[in-house]
């Protein structure tokens, strides 16, 4: 299967401004990889380096073992779907989808067949003779995808393709892209700032920050075992809560820390070099904090967001930014109520003074889970 992409020591500098210091990354053939990170982290730049729209300042990019670092985009065998769709406004849908094939010198009849096949897959058959300005946002996005599919590239590159769509359409297109990957099994590299898109679509998530890879792994691996504060705070919505804590004891069973307010909790992580008295950060996700009678954290509810299916309580705790706890949909806590929150030690994360996570003693069972069940028969796809 084609579409294995390897980056070695890739560096991108504009004058004195270093966007990407040095990146090493391996993308397996057929994987759905998502580059995610805050604005300005270099994810779009990295995608454009792979596409060939920017030149690397240093480093190598290999596609299926061939060094493409000096090849123009046309020769790399990749397709890209842009955030603004970038359709050719003066061509019809048919012309847009078939343009790449025309550039490749394919005979007209073959182009017509491929374009019509792609159009039927994407429900665009009735719009083939329309111009882009006569289409809705979702239809335009489909044309952009059709233009990419029809060239049968080694890999698809998506640059924040859903950012310009409204919320409902975004959910629908997300499903379609997931199903597209399922049926085509081509490598897909997807850039987004939305961590929900990352969690739902990816086989592997690469979290970027200021041009560096903070962590790369499966969605659940990043969720349950973030390696540092940045990844822990980035993945998961609402954000993980962080508490300043102090080590009281460190042993084989875990590290005991004192929470603000004085209560202690033993977190089952490897103690490493920690000693009593060290300052650490305790992380707890909102869904792992429960309003309960004998909880370790005391505070007053400032805001209650009721979504129906669940409720998010924003609690003012002394010396902390607002703590978010997830409660049941029919929870009756009100604003200004005093609550105590119980933390489950197994679900906590501890981060040392440099922000690095201490490894858990026991890995989460789903962290190594493969997202797709193995197929019982080979995919019916002529390539």
């Amino acid at each position, binding site marked *: 299967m084609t579409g294995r992409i390897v980056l070695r020591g890739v560096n991108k500098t504009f004058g004195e401004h270093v966007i990407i210091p040095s990146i090493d990354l391996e993308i397996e053939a057929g994987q759905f990889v998502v580059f995610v990170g805050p604005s300005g982290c270099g994810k779009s730049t990295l995608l454009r380096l792979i596409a060939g*729209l920017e030149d690397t300042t240093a480093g190598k990019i290999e596609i299926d073992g061939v060094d493409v670092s000096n090849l123009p*985009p046309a020769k790399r065998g990749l397709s*890209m779907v842009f*955030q*603004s769709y*970038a*359709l050719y406004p*003066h061509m019809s849908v048919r012309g847009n989808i078939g343009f*790449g094939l025309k550039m490749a010198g394919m005979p007209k009849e073959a182009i017509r067949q491929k374009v019509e096949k792609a159009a039927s897959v994407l429900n665009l058959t009735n719009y083939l003779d329309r111009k882009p300005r006569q289409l809705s946002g979702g239809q335009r996005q489909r044309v952009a995808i059709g233009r990419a599919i029809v*060239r049968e590239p080694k890999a698809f590159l998506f640059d924040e393709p859903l950012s310009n769509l409204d919320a409902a359409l975004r959910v629908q297109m997300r499903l379609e892209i997931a199903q597209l990957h399922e049926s085509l099994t081509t490598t897909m590299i997807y850039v987004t700032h939305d961590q929900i898109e990352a969690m739902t679509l990816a086989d592997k998530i690469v979290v970027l920050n200021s041009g560096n890879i903070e962590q790369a792994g499966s969605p659940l691996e990043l969720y349950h075992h973030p390696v540092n504060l940045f990844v822990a705070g980035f993945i998961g919505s609402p954000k993980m809560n962080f508490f300043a804590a102090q080590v009281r004891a460190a042993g084989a069973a875990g590290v005991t820390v004192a929470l603000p307010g004085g209560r202690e909790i033993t977190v089952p992580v490897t103690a490493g070099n920690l000693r009593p008295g060290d300052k650490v950060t305790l992380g707890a996700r909102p869904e792992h904090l429960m309003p309960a009678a004998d909880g370790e954290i005391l505070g007053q509810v400032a805001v209650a967001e009721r979504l129906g299916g669940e409720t998010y309580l924003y609690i003012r705790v002394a010396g902390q930014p607002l703590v978010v706890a997830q409660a049941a949909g029919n929870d009756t806590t009100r604003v200004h109520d005093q609550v105590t929150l119980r933390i489950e030690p197994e679900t906590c994360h501890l981060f040392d003074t440099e922000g690095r996570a201490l490894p858990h003693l026991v890995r989460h069972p789903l962290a190594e889970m493969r997202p797709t069940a193995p197929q019982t028969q080979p995919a019916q796809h002529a390539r």
Partner: protein
Amino acid sequence: MARAASLQRRTATTAAGWIVGFLIFFPILWMVLTSFKTELEAFSTPPKFLFFHWTLENFGIVQERSNYLRFAANSIILSLGSTLLGLLFAVPAAWAMAFAPGKRTKDLLLWMLSTKMMPPVGALIPIYLLFKNTGLLDTRGGLIAVEFLINLPIIVWMLFTYFKEIPGEILEAARMDGASLWKEIVYVLTPMAIPGIASTLLLNVILAWNEAFWTLNLTTTNAAPLTAFIASYSSPEGLFWAKLSAASTMAIAPILILGWFSQRQLVRGLTFGAVK
């Protein structure tokens, strides 16, 4: 809430607009009307507005006396020639400035535009001497060269603003689709920029057509366009109002008609960078 203009106010504004427009247009209207009068009626007092003896004799006399068609042909050749030459040079220049700008690009653009601020008379003597010594005086080639160089900054600037409107991502998509640079320009950039190129072409044809300073100073007979034609009619021999009006009407008619049909393009081209 949008300010609702009352019917009264709107009528008053419209009437005022028409009046101002009429006042501005009046000299030209008067000139056109005069060209249809006999010489006697042309400077009769009180001046007759519409009810006079309409005649075409002036146009005939003008064409007989001085070959109008030759002057008109020169005007067309000079304005079209210089504009097309300008486009040939300006399209690649504007492409480079819009899609591959360097550190100095903005400075270069402003400098080009600043050359238009110099009074042309400052360069008259050197250029005249140059043309005299190279035998370019009164040649169409020489005039095309001058008009091309004069208008090049404007053509480059206008094309630059039109090209900047084209989203760079569309050209990148063409590159991803396998288009070479040449194919990118032919299949994607040019079709998208055609309205802009057309506006630029029109505006510069008009500017070149109306160019009087250089045409009067550098031509005598062979390459003289319509600007020289009109000038030759203001001779000290005597004022022939009707014939002069006829000659002027014939001189500006082509460009007035062109301008009428391309008004929208012109407004767009002229107000461009002003409002984004």
